[in-house]
C-alpha cells in the first residue's frame, strides 16, 4: 500500500509542465469515465425489469448533484477524446513534438467551448433557466 502511494505521489509531484498536467488529467478523466460506464451499464440493465423500475433508476439522475456530476462526465469524455487525439498525433508524427504546447492549447480551444455549451444545456434546467 505504501508502495502504491509513493509511486502515485511521484507521479503527481514530477514537474513535467503541460505534458505532465495533460497526463494526470488524462488518467483522472479516463478513470472517471470508466467508472461511469460501469454504472451506466448497470442502470441500463434495469430496462429489462420493465418501465416502472427503469423510471425509478432514471429519476436518480435528475437531482442537482447528479446534474453537476453529469457536467464533469461530459467534460471528462471530451477532454479524454481530444487529449487522446493529441497523444496519437505526437506518437505517429514526430515533428509535432515541436508544437506540443500549441497542440495542448488547441485541445483546450476545443474542449472548453464544447464543455461550456454542454454545461449550459445540463445545468440550465436545474436553475430554472430554460
Amino acid at each position, binding site marked *: 500500500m505504501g*508502495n*502504491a502511494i509513493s*509511486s*502515485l505521489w511521484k*507521479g503527481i509531484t514530477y514537474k513535467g509542465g503541460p505534458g505532465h498536467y495533460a497526463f494526470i488529467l488524462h*488518467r483522472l478523466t*479516463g*478513470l472517471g*469515465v*470508466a467508472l461511469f*460506464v*460501469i454504472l451506466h*451499464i*448497470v442502470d*441500463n*440493465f434495469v*430496462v*429489462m425489469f420493465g*418501465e416502472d423500475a*427503469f*423510471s425509478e433508476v*432514471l429519476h436518480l*439522475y*435528475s437531482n442537482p448533484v447528479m*446534474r453537476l456530476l*453529469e457536467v464533469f*462526465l*461530459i467534460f471528462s*469524455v*471530451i477532454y479524454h*477524446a*481530444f487529449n*487522446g*487525439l493529441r497523444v*496519437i498525433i505526437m*506518437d*505517429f508524427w*514526430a*515533428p509535432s*513534438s*515541436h508544437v506540443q504546447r500549441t497542440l495542448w492549447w488547441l485541445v483546450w480551444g476545443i474542449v472548453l467551448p464544447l464543455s461550456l*455549451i*454542454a454545461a449550459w*444545456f*445540463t445545468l440550465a*434546467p436545474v436553475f430554472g433557466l430554460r
Partner: protein
Amino acid sequence: MEIINKEYGLPKEKFKGGFETWAWFFMRISGVVLLFIAVIHLLWMHIGIQVENITYDVVRDRWIGPWGPFWKTYDIALLTFALMHGFNGLRWITDDYIKKPGWNAFVKALLLVIFLIVIGMGAYTVISFNG
C-alpha cells in the same frame, strides 16, 4: 523544419508485435473510433435529446423502432470498444501503481471479472431487449 525532420525520423526498428504492443496499438485505434462514436453518443444524449427527456419509451423507440437494428449495432460497438479501451486503461494504471506481484495479479483478475460481468450485462440488454 528540415533539421527537425532529419533529427526525428520515424523509428527504423521493425514492428515486432506481441500482446503489449498490440494493446498499445489497440488503444490508438479504439481511441479514434471512440472519439467519434462515444462523443456523438454523449452529445446526442446530453444536448440533442437531453437527459431529463430520456424515458423508457425513448429507449424502446431507439432499439425497437425502425432504426432499431442500426442503434443496436451502434450500441454493441460502443459497448465493446468503450469497455476494452477502459479496462485496458485500468490494467495499465494497475501496473503503474500496484507493484507488489500478488496485489497486482489480484487487482487485474478482479478487473477481468468485472469486465466480463459488465460486457455480458450490456450485451444482454442491447441484444435481448424487445420492448
